[in-house]
């Protein structure tokens, strides 16, 4: 007797462990029966879906809906037969299409191979061989798409030769590459941006529209710097803008020359102030004045005079 009673709690525990623990209290499920309208509706829905998928060639989906119908109506032999037939059809289609796809691959016809492998996977999504072949085809396709770019990995010299033709001009990708470089530059990566813009110009020396766009971006940056008082840096950008554009723009040249004169005068004045306290500094400032504006006669005269005086000592 003790053995009997001792087993009962063990049984209860095992059954409890086996049972699914609902995450919240659940209502008792009505037992399925053919007369249950909710059951019938569900059976009808999944039969219709199985039919629909079967007719469209989505055999894998058809099979899983037949599987649902069989679960809903386990005693119906016709449903089980439909499920079995669908699975046989899956196997047949997958085998036929896989063979066709492999033959197409051997013949080098990747379009036909792709089509066949897609059919295999529509019927049998777990078919690893079809998936492998599709991925290989896609890898080759992606490689071809990048082929033009891969060719660019040779040298810039090659690029220059290619760029001299018209094929690169007006290309959408070129436009993107150009805009990307300009955005980098505008966003404050001036060193990286200028380096990339210079590379673009080097690779596309005849692309006048692009060079005008690049020059304008660099010139605008110069204007901003000049407005903020960073005049020497601004002048560097004006000079780079003119060089990158590759053709004269009167306004740019005029502004650069005006700034050169301004800086020449500024350093001349600084030299005058420094002369009484630090003559060497004054000389360096007049030298700077002449670097900016070689035509600054006053700076030239002062520098000559200073050198004469210091040289006499």
């Amino acid at each position: 007797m003790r053995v009997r009673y001792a087993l009962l709690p063990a049984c209860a525990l095992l059954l409890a462990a086996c049972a699914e623990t609902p995450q919240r209290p659940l209502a008792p499920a009505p037992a399925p029966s053919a007369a249950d309208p909710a059951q019938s509706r569900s059976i009808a829905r999944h039969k219709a879906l199985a039919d629909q998928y079967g007719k469209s060639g989505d055999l894998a989906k058809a099979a899983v809906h037949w599987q649902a119908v069989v679960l809903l109506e386990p005693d119906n032999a016709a449903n089980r037969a439909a499920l079995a037939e669908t699975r046989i059809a899956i196997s047949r289609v997958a085998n036929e299409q896989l063979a066709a796809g492999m033959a197409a691959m051997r013949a080098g016809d990747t379009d036909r191979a792709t089509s066949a492998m897609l059919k295999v996977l529509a019927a049998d999504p777990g078919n690893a061989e079809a998936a492998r072949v599709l991925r290989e085809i896609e890898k080759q396709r992606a490689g071809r798409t990048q082929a033009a770019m891969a060719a660019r990995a040779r040298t810039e010299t090659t690029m220059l030769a290619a760029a001299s033709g018209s094929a690169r001009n007006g290309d959408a990708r070129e436009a993107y590459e150009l805009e990307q470089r300009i955005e980098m530059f505008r966003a404050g990566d001036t060193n990286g941006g200028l380096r990339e813009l210079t590379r673009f110009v080097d690779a596309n020396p005849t692309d006048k529209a692009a060079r005008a766009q690049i020059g304008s971006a660099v010139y605008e940056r110069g204007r901003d710097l000049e407005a903020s008082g960073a005049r020497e840096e601004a002048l560097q950008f004006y000079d780079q803008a003119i060089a990158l554009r590759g053709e004269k723009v009167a306004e740019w040249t005029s502004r650069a020359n005006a700034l050169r004169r301004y800086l020449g005068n500024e350093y001349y004045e600084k030299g005058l102030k420094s002369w009484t306290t630090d003559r060497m500094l004054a000389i360096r400032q007049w030298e700077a004045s002449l670097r900016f504006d070689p035509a600054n006669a006053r700076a030239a005269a002062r520098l000559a005079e200073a050198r004469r005086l210091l040289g006499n000592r």
Partner: protein
Amino acid sequence: MMPLADRDVFRVVVVLALALQGCASAPPEPDAHPPALAVAHAASRGPVVAQDDDLQIVVAQPGDDASALAARHLGDPGKGWWITQFNGVDKFTAGERVVIPRKGPHPLGIGAQGYQTVPILSYHRFGSPKRRLSVTGADFEAQMEFLDRNGYRVISLAQFSAFLEGREALPPKSVVITIDDGYKSTYEIAYPVLRKYGFPATVFLYSDFVGAADAMTWPQMQEMVRSGLIDIQPHSKTHSNLALRFANETPAQYRERVRLEVERPSALISERLGTKPVVYAYPYGDVNEAVVEQLQKTGLRLGVTVSPGGNPVFAYPFMLRRTMVFGTDDMETFKSRLITFNRTPAR
């Protein structure tokens, strides 16, 4: 003759064995009856009517929708689309039999009508003035609202990676959002909008940009990563074209530059953000096999180009298509970039 106690013990063991057999989920055979635990145990098991390895038949409770059923039976309300897709409806009346696909749809997204493709959208800068590579805040908000209201599912690149590896099915109309370079406007304009809609996004950073006037700072990036919505991935060190060997570069110098352009930003992101980069965005979208090789050596698993279009499950992971969204696009153009299904029939 067996003693009475032993007979009872034998009976209990038999009953127990039968009960446990009923509880075990045997693999389904086409010609055999499915495990019929449901009928026998319906009352004690709640609304689970029947099940096998792949499917579970449950009885909908009042107020149940696909998300509630997914939360209860799949442990994740986000898997509600599995139930919706399988049953063809997302609202259920109480007492209705609902089929729960326990393993989800097959993750390839391939059917007789065509195959699923995932567009990876690429943004750069946000704000005014409107330029090709600068989308205004208002336009970005309108685009996100469009995705939200029209059944698009914005997924992370990690989810997309799982799809490519055949590990996870993606909901129909899945879209990935990426933002290149690391502009400050990503944090100031795009991030609040992404947070509003709960959309994940990947920022591709070229690391030399950090510190520039219009670049994000590391604390801003750390904040975004902590949100769980944004991940930061490498986009080179200097943004030089990796498929281009410069005139003054020897092949060895070129390989070394490629190595640095891949390894440095990856290491920096790991160090500053504590995450392990897995995806690389090629500067200007340009790539060759030497670059792919370097990605593989660095432990990166995906690479994105700027060749437009959607990505099927069989896409080459190191040359994924990515579609740029331009500031000059109108909404119709934006919609046309959302290629989530290729209707090339498989039949």
